């Protein structure tokens, strides 16, 4: 066994490093082709500006401080909305997973509300809140609520009953049982919910900011459209993509740190 370990360990360690480079080849090639296509006039810059133009537009907006301000506004809306919707969803998931009574009272209602696409509420939300901050926060929170609620509930309900029985046999109190058995058992599923929720969070924010906002990335893109600044439009789209990727990576790091016991996350 020690022989196998010492042979397979370095090989395992080399793999991700190669992967790290390989996965960037295709995106870089696409950007290069895109640049060539624009410079040679194959693609008219009215349709798609060259990457260099997009970068230049980004640089200018960065210098004027406008870019940072808009990113910050969007980031703030996303996080606050996520926190509000996520904690309410988590609380309901816990409550309905642990208490029959709570589940009977609220689960059916929540499942019904779930069938309303939350973006369909935009006209109503604008009537309620105007194009105020609260409108965006409400929409993001609502969008984030369901994946977190459903996956927390699912995670708690599918904790191995044999482990729960084991905990009881060994005299765990309710709170110990929750801390040592139920919550760690539900965590993988909760993370699935978080990752789903992060995707919905950005999607909701883009739509909400595009339709009803006076600041933020979506607003910046819409303003640019009015002035035919296509490079800024493309820039905003790319930044959205980047932020989405960042959020996903952050959740993966967190997942890796808290689920290190899980065979799927073990390096050796």
């Amino acid at each position: 066994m020690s022989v196998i370990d010492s042979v397979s360990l370095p090989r395992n360690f080399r793999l991700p490093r190669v992967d790290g480079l390989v996965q960037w080849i295709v995106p870089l090639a696409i950007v290069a082709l895109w640049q060539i296509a624009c410079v040679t006039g194959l693609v008219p810059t009215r349709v798609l500006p060259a990457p260099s133009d997009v970068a230049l537009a980004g640089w200018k907006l960065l210098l004027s401080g406008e870019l940072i301000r808009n990113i910050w506004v969007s980031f703030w809306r996303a996080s606050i909305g996520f926190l509000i919707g996520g904690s309410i969803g988590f609380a309901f998931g816990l409550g309905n997973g642990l208490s029959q009574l709570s589940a009977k009272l609220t689960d059916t209602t929540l499942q019904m509300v779930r069938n309303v696409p939350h973006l369909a509420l935009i006209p109503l939300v604008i009537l309620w809140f105007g194009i105020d901050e609260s409108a965006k926060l409400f929409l993001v929170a609502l969008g984030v609520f369901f994946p977190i609620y459903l996956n927390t509930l699912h995670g708690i309900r599918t904790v191995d009953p044999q482990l729960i029985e084991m905990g009881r046999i060994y005299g765990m109190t309710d709170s110990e049982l929750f801390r040592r058995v139920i919550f760690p058992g539900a965590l993988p599923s909760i993370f699935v919910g978080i990752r789903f929720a992060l995707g919905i969070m950005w999607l909701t924010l883009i739509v909400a900011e595009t339709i009803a906002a006076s600041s933020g990335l979506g607003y910046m893109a819409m303003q640019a459209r009015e002035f035919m600044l296509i490079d800024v439009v493309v820039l905003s789209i790319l930044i959205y993509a980047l932020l989405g990727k960042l959020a996903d990576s952050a959740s993966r790091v967190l997942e890796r740190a808290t689920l290190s016991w899980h065979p799927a996350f073990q390096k050796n």
Partner: protein
Amino acid sequence: MQTALRTILPETEFGSRANFAPHARVAREERPTQISGLPLGIRGLRKSYGDNEVLRGIDLHIPSGQFVAIVGKSGCGKSTLLRLIAGLEKSDAGSVSFGDEIQAEDIRVMFQEPRLLPWARVLSNVEVGLGRDRSSTDAHVRAEKALAEVGLADKRDQWPSVLSGGQKQRVALARALVSRPRVLAFDEPLGALDALTRISMQRLLERVWRDQGFTAILVTHDVAEAVALADRVLVIEEGRIAHDVVVNAGRPRERGSAELAGLEGSILNHLLSGDDRT
């Protein structure tokens, strides 16, 4: 593996104890108090699930420290009996009594599945077995001792998922032993293991039982295992104890001896004769 881990872990008191080294046993015998097993009295025990009368009146006395094996066809109620003894299920009638005031930590159960917490390291899994003493200051030390008893001291910081089936079951045994129980109930604990691992686990069970003197109740579908380990084999049929067979062979027992094989054959005959009648 041994060598690799040795270099990672410093030579601790436990790390240096190879699996079942003789000097480990000497150390155990020097331990001051030997808590003795509890006697067990069962009277008129009945249990039904709906129309299914599983146990139809079990009467049984087990002297303290005896090793009893329970065999019987699948579905005859062996697990049910064990769960009633361990207090995991309520009986419809009858009683289970132990000779003494008991605490939850005095009775432990081991199942066919190890039921380890996948998100807790091996040592923390063993600490779970301490019950209310989990948060006491010597919890670590006691858990380490129990791990050393099952020969897994060097695995204390591993995740359960990297252990083999037999090793997981040994961790589960350490968890059951760590509170020094006076009755230990086993529900086919070796059922999922391969033949060789089974035999070494049987030896381990016998050794800890002899060292610690608890009363052992082992449910098994393997009659050879029952006669190899137990002082007494009970055959359950139609919800009652149909046969109560004493195994007089001395210990340590020689596997496959003519005496044990003869006993095994006659118990198997008991079990199979029911088939002819129905």
